[in-house]
């Protein structure tokens, strides 16, 4: 089973939950797909056994063959190439705008004048901690999109024989869609504040569009506060678990630790309930 964990915004406890959950159901694979800010490793403290560069093709102009016709610059949908025509004959490339789409190479009329070369955009690290396998992607600063690296992570986990917990990026935009769309089940972590419910409603909208089975987990739950449950009932979504607010947990979290054992039993039974629903 591939279970993705998402939240409407950062800071709701998505990583806290993902990490507690992955540890509870191990042996399994935990994947940190929040490639702009991967945090899961801080709490799981895996031993990294393998690190692989993630690269994508970017254009390189061969001055001797280039006629500076400007076709590539005109065709580039992201304005990443600038060609200054003769007599100046200069070419400029803005890597932070490039999406590695391949249009420039396709339209270049001069054979061999524009080639594509790999450019490192991030890294994938693989490791292990006790019986939990670990994988994370780290995107280089300035890279315009997290999506290609997340897609690479998905390629790598596609044939994993056991359960996978995907710690998705926060929010509701493209990277989150990429991380969650092939999951069997999505857990939405929400906090019981007006903000929390508002943000939850946005991510619910996205998940509904993707038609993925989902349920809610309340984090930082407070006694007598059921605003998330009230919202969930209106939408007909199950709330499967509540992690109570605890200063002790907040303090541990700030030190990079989590009380894994405290949640093991509860999260194992949550896993069973999800398994029933996925069928």
């Amino acid at each position: 089973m591939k279970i993705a964990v998402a939240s409407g915004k950062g800071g709701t406890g998505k990583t806290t939950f993902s990490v507690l959950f992955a540890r509870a159901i191990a042996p399994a694979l935990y994947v940190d797909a929040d490639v702009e800010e991967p945090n899961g490793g801080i709490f799981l403290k895996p031993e990294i056994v393998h690190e692989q560069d993630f690269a994508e093709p970017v254009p390189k102009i061969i001055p001797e063959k280039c006629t500076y016709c400007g076709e590539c610059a005109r065709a580039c949908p992201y304005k990443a190439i600038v060609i200054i025509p003769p007599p100046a004959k200069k070419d400029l490339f803005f890597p932070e705008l490039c999406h590695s789409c391949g249009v420039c190479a396709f339209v270049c009329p001069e054979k061999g004048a524009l080639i594509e070369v790999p450019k490192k955009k991030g890294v994938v690290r693989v490791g292990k901690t006790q019986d939990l396998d670990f994988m994370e992607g780290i995107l280089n600063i300035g890279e315009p999109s997290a999506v290609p690296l997340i897609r690479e992570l998905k390629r790598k986990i596609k044939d994993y024989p056991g359960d996978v917990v995907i710690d998705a990026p926060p929010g509701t935009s493209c990277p989150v869609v990429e991380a969650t769309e092939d999951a069997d089940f999505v857990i939405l972590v929400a906090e019981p504040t007006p903000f929390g419910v508002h943000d939850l409603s946005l991510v619910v909208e996205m998940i509904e569009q993707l038609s993925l089975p989902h349920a809610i987990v309340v984090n930082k739950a407070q006694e007598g506060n059921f605003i998330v449950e009230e919202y969930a009932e209106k939408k007909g979504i199950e709330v499967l678990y509540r992690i109570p607010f605890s200063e002790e947990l907040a303090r541990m979290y700030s030190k990079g630790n989590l009380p894994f054992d405290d949640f093991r039993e509860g999260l194992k039974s949550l896993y069973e309930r999800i398994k029933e629903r996925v069928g």
Partner: protein
Amino acid sequence: MNAKEIVIISGKGGTGKTTITSSFVWLMHKHGEKFVIADADVDAADMHILLEPKIEYEEEFVGKSVAVIDDAECTSCDICRQLCRFDAIDIVDDTYRVNPFKCDGCTLCAIACPVKAIEMVPQVVGKWFLSSTKFGPMVHARLIPGAENSGNLVTMVKHQAHLISEKENIPYILVDGPPGIGCPVTSSISGASFVAIVVEPSFSAIHDMERATDTALHFGVPHGIIINKSGINPENEEQIKEFTKKRGIPFLGSVPFSMCVIDALVNKKIAASACSEVERKIEDIFSRILEVVNEKP
């Protein structure tokens, strides 16, 4: 006249960025300063819950175009699917279909299609709003969940805020930036006069803050650190302060963690208005930022 743009970001969500920005708003208003509020956190725009804007104008925002295959013209040659680098073309029931969620809008398929069966169609990806609040004019936006282009919508929000500031001669623009790093944050930092980075004293936040600071550095924008939820972990706080000293980044101040702030949040009140300690700390921070911002022409 170029308005001074003060942008508030955090390396990740949950550090309390919106709490701080809204407190800035309240405080600047209390001091009689004129400013435009720009809520650039378009994936999860939270400022409007606290500021209660009255929408006066709204416009749909057209984002990138996505490819659409004309069934009638398509000859199923498969060239588009093979060339697409984003895995966006599938065959569904013998028909070639572009998945609009995966399509990057790069136009390669449209260019390559031998029978010109593919068209690029602009997509509405959200809406932006011009509103009034009791603190001043506000620009905010909403992205359709699942849609991309936060970077461009962020740019639009800032652009509209600048238009207002010019028209009404307003000297400051306060931007509540999106969390994380990457395209939307880059857009929010570009053109800023100052970037305040909000961190909380947790182990992961320091690691996140480094990346956020690197982004601001990459763009050469003056920046400084604010520690929110101060008191949870004094050790980490010291580490953060040392980091700022080592890098020569100004440390702007700390805002304490307290139940008062949490209660304010739950009751939809602005933290500075409800908690006097928060008001005092934000006052300090705010005057330091204005000092830096008004130094440069």
